[in-house]
């Protein structure tokens, strides 16, 4: 484990984060956007675990458990919202869900 340099983990994490952000910003399907958000969360988790392991401090890993718990709850709520939106508008294309404006 210690043979792999820390940069590898961090680069992977950053890459995942950028993929997530890009997805959130450019994809039109709400489900995909949602999955990208999960990706961002997990990249953050990866960073936390990495530092935790390298610094020998378990707090980072405990933090990850919290993030995962919150992510699970958020997933449930988020999916419920998407289903509710779909029932109303018969679409999950977020370009068409834009009634909150001037």
């Amino acid at each position, binding site marked *: 484990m210690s043979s792999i340099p820390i940069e590898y983990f961090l680069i992977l994490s950053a890459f995942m984060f950028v993929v997530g952000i890009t997805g959130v*910003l450019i994809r039109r399907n709400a489900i995909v956007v949602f999955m990208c958000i999960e990706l961002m969360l997990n990249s953050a988790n990866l960073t936390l675990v990495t530092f935790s392991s390298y610094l020998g401090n378990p707090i980072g890993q405990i933090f990850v458990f919290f993030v995962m718990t919150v992510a699970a709850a958020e997933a449930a709520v988020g999916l419920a919202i998407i289903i509710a939106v779909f029932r109303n508008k018969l679409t999950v294309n*977020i370009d068409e869900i*834009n009634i*909150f*404006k*001037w």
Partner: protein
Amino acid sequence: MINYIYLTVLLPLIGFVINGLFGSKIKNEKVIGIIGSSTVGIAFLVTLFAFFETLNLPVENRSNTVELFTWLNVAGLNIKFAYLVDQLSLTMSLIVTGVGFLIHVYSIGYMHGDKGFWRFFAYLNLFIFAMMNLVLGDNFVVLFLGWEGVGLCSYLLIGFWYDRKFEKGTVPQAAKKAFVVNRIGDFGFLLGMFLIYYTFDSLNFNEVFHKAASFPVSEATFGLIAIFLFIGATGKSAQIPLFVWLPDAMAGPTPVSALIHAATMVTAGVYMVSRAAIIFASAPTVMMIVAVIGLLTALMAATIGLVQNDIKKVLAYSTVSQLGYMFLAAGVGAFSASIFHVMTHAFFKALLFLGAGSVIHGMHEEQNIQRYGGLKKYMPKTYVTFFIATLAIAGIPGLSGFFSKDEILWYSYANGGFLFWFIGVITAMMTAFYMFRLLSLTFYGKERFDHHHVHPHESPSVMTVPLMILAFFSVVGGYIGIPEVFSGEHGNLFHNWLEPVYAPAIARLNSFGSHSNLEEILLMIISVALALTSIYFAIKIYTQKPEIAEKISTRFKRLYTILLNKYYVDEIYEAAVVQPIQKGSEKILWKFTDNMIIDGAVNGIAKIVDASSGLIRKIQNGIAQFYAIIMLLGIALVLLWIILSI
């Protein structure tokens, strides 16, 4: 009992609360009337006990303060809620609760069947509460509390029959007029209070008057304070130039006119002036103004009273005129004489108003004396009591009005000069004349009412008994103030009783001119002779030869019209004050300031915000991802800034 003097204030307040809150639920008029009257009756008894207790004290201990609680304590201003029980306040309290009680009882009969019966008694009790604060207060602030309170009650009671018409307008208009005119006076009173605090650093009577008597304060300051206080008094006590509200106050029920607009509230100004005697005595110029205003008011109101045809209007102008006498007395330094006249006037004028109420009651709300006549045989009790009161106000020797009025005339001669006395006597003559004109037109002569529609009848005893009691006091009330000329070594009892209150003021006034007893008796005989002559002519003209009155009025048509229209004072005020204010408010304040400047500023700001936000609100396009990009850019910028700043 002195320490329980607060009961005289508390009980009427309790009566007000009970009748005010639950009166509409208590359907029984008797219960409401008994609650309303008994609270005032008990207050009278308490005052009476306190009076006798004070009477038994040695003279130097007769001024007592009853402290209840600290009312205000801010930044060095310490106002105690306290009552000053001394000779002057006890005299006033006895008048207020005593006459007030009788009028409460009378009202049970007079207001019988009125839909606002409970409301009436609630207001009356509230009035007594306020009035007692006014006369008992031991500092200017408590006095002012009562001062405003009685003004409020006056407003409420003048407007009591708020759905009725009154003369050219409505009853609420009359009430509003009284309130607004009083406010003008109150403003002066407030300024006077501010100036007192500024000068003497206190508002407590004892402190202020003590400092006024011993501190070196310029006469100009005293003059300014006195003139402000006097402006307040002219408002409350209906003197020139603020007397116009009192005749209109007759829109209220007659017991209200008797209680508030004859016996008690309108004398508040006289009370205040005589309470602050030392301040007035220190400003001779203002004393002169007070005397002259009083004299002019007395004369002017009496001349108007000569030709009025509404029974209550005659009495209203008579009240204004008698109040003028009281200020004349105060102005020439005869403070105790003015309070003496307050007392006797309370008896006979309350009696006159209540008698008038009894007549109006028996004549089915008719108030025009030209449509009365010959009522003597229908209302014997009302007639006899009314007759006694008329004799008293006319100044017939042996009745209370004679003693008080002659004392005032004597002092105005001794301290003011011949002219004061002369105008005073002329006014007294007119008073005798218009009062006997009223008496003749009402009770003597031909019956001028329509027998088919009007059946005059005597009032119930709940109304006539108070009349008789008041008649009794109208006769004997004067004997406590027999002038020194007659009473010899004992001197004037009433004067001796009040003397300690005025001692500092009297000491400061220039010494009275000395005149012989013979002179005093001679003047007395002249004024009585003149009064008797005018009584003779009044009865002669108005019972036997009404055509003479007719002839005189056509002969002096212009003068008659001027008097009938009350010197056009209302019209002049309307044109000179009311209209400019209304027009000015409309044109300048409303249409220009409010509509253009204030509304323009408010609407202008709204328009600017609306226009500028129209440009930038396009950013908010509803697409969540657009917001996310903005957010990302923001975060990136913040991160960049953090990194660069390291």
